């Protein structure tokens, strides 16, 4: 059980990719259904609704980013993975904002995106505004990403 620290750190990394990825998959799927419905009626709106569909997809990428960052920091990708239990736990906690906020914000963002897609279907001229509503939700994913990045990079220099 010497490697408990590594186990926690890796769990954190995996959780970030896992939960944020699940959130984005659900989100993009939901928005995709709505988008396909619009395109059935009017194929020319494809470009507009595609952008809206992609919006909840970013959380998965942020999750991947945090996971990758953690993996490089703890030395799983080339290096010697040897970290203390305390540090491992810290990495685990550092990944949590991205994991949970990623999961929930992607789903909530998708709900906003679905409504925006309906908006674009009825009033294509309002596409610019329609993008803003889901983008408001994304702010919180970005804030979580920020904290996770700052934590993970900051932990590298810590000596415990």
């Amino acid at each position: 059980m010497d490697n408990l620290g590594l186990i926690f750190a890796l769990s954190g990394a995996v959780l970030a990719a896992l939960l944020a990825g699940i959130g984005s998959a659900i989100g993009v799927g939901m928005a995709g259904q709505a988008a396909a419905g619009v395109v059935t009626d009017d194929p020319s709106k494809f470009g507009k609704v595609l952008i809206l569909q992609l919006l909840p997809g970013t959380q998965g990428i942020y999750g991947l980013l945090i996971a990758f960052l953690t993996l490089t920091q703890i030395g799983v990708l080339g290096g010697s993975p040897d970290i203390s239990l305390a540090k491992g736990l810290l990495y685990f906690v550092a990944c949590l904002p991205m994991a949970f906020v990623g999961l929930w914000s992607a789903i909530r963002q998708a709900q906003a995106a679905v409504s925006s897609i309906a908006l674009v279907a009825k009033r294509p001229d309002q596409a610019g505004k329609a993008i803003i509503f889901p983008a408001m939700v994304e702010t919180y994913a970005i804030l979580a990403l920020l904290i996770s990045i700052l934590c993970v990079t900051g932990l590298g220099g810590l000596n415990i």
Partner: protein
Amino acid sequence: MAILPMKRIHIYALLKDRKRIMEMLQRFGTVQIEDNLEEDEIFLKKDISGEKQKVERDLTLVSQALDILESHVPEPKSILDTLNGRRELSVEDFERLGSKQDDIRKMAEHIKDLDRTIAECKSEIHKINTQIEALSPWSSLDIPLQFQGTRSTCALTGTLPGELSLENILDKLADMLPDADEIHADIISSGKDQTHIFLLCPRHNASAVEGALRSMGFARPPVSSGNIIPAEQKTKLEAERAELERLSEKSKNEIIQHAEKRDELKFLYDWLTMRLERLENKKCLLESKYTFIIAGYIPQKEIQAVTSALSSRFLVYIELNDPGEDEDVPVLLENSKFSEPVEGVLRSFSYPGKGEIDPISIMSVFYYILFGLMLSDAAYGLLMTIGCGICLLKFKNMESGMRKTLRMFFFCGISTTFWGAMFGSWFGDVVTVVSSTFFNKTAAIKPIWFEPMRDPMRMLVFSMAMGIVHLFTGLGAKLYQCIRAKQYKDALYDAVFWYMLVGGLIIFALSTEKFVEILNLSFILPKSAGNAAAVIAAIAAIGIVLTSGRESRNWFKRILKGLYGLYNITGYMSDILSYSRLLALGLATGVIASVINQMGAMGGRSVAGAILFIVVFLAGHSINIGINLLGAYVHTNRLSFVEFFGKFYEGGGSEFTPLGVHTKYYKLREESNHG
């Protein structure tokens, strides 16, 4: 640069010139006709619904004809078509084709008829095929299917379920009708599901025999062969089918021949679209017996061209005056080539409303900077710049909307390249990875400024500083708007106080050790400056509490509203924090790019490894550009709309939509002179 000044225009002219005047105005495309004239007993509006319906019907006809041609002879399409823009057509060609419109319409009708013929043939052929199929089991029967029998015999032709032998049938019949004899039966053909039989019996017990057969599941054949034998009927049907096929083929060929005249149909489509637009505008005109009146808006700088052209050719009287104070004047923007591309983004928000400035020029500068900061990879930026640049140079005939979009991404690309170089990101860290994996060396492109990945706090501070500049510029625009409208008190209360409060708080924070320590700054402001700033902020806070609720007469209410107004300081906090997305998105681009490079390098130093690297590199970076381009676009819009516009801009103006040529396939060569 600005919102163009507009004038109200009234044109009084003779009814006989109406068509030509409307056509001329349409070609100029600079007059927006308004429906704000009052009818009286002499001047009336004309009902155009009948005419409009006819034009709309023709438009549907032509577009159907074009669809039919497209389904038979698909037109080669490529991505370049969107870049090439519509084809040009000279005014002479336009008029020449216009005189042929009846012929072209007839051709469209003909194409539609041919298509209907093909469809009819198809359904007829389908029907015949079913009949032939139903007849084929009977082909060896040498009497007509509907043969009823002779005077003393009765013929029963039909099917029995299941595969039965002759003996089977006769046995069953004998069981059911023991006294019936003289039954003659033949099996014409039999399959697994059905047996086709022909049965002859004396007329006197025909009904008994038929009853017995029915109880065995007997059914008359579903087809008729008339009074000829099935084989002959089949040949006859086959001949009919061949005839139909020939007809269908002929119609098809004829349609294909018409494909070369597709351009004429496209022309007619445009011609009708223009006519429809004129009609839509015509219903706004007032007409008397011999004269008519047009009312509308015209940009000041176009007046000369329109009035001189009209008065030189027609007998007209033109009246111009300034729009009234409370009128909702349509907005037309004119900006430099550098700022103009962002107009599309502004349009998707809203055009400037009453008393607001055109925000394009300040907005565009920040738009490009923020976009660059979010994408922040020099190589991606170069790709964007070069790609858009080549398209802009190569396709001269591009539609103006497309041109603006490309120009916007061109400038965004330059900014991206700049920031990418500042932060040392070229396809992420591709130089480092390639040199260490394949050449065993350590090389790297040094950032001109610093690497955000290694020093995220510094980048965070920079992002927020950028945000403060952006927000204060927005507040400055508010100040300017108030001063321009001579509302000096509002300028003081809504802009200056906030400058003092937010600015004072920031300076005060920069003079405290704790804050400087958190942000990891290399400088600290002297205590005295901090104290002075705190006093200024306090004065501003009191000012805001006293003035925010100034529309309320009741002092108690006013102070409460004032306190709520002061609470808005949290809005500034969250606005500034919102700019942390510059860091997050910038890092996202860089980190994903490094992930791609590392994945590519997993093959190690070999030929296969190099191939893997190239494949992963191409696919990965294409995806990364796409995703981050979308992210940068969306979030730059958000920062502009929510944080920046939130300080001074509401919009709500209506766009200037002149009567013009809005065609789908061709553009008039003359059109280019007028926008």
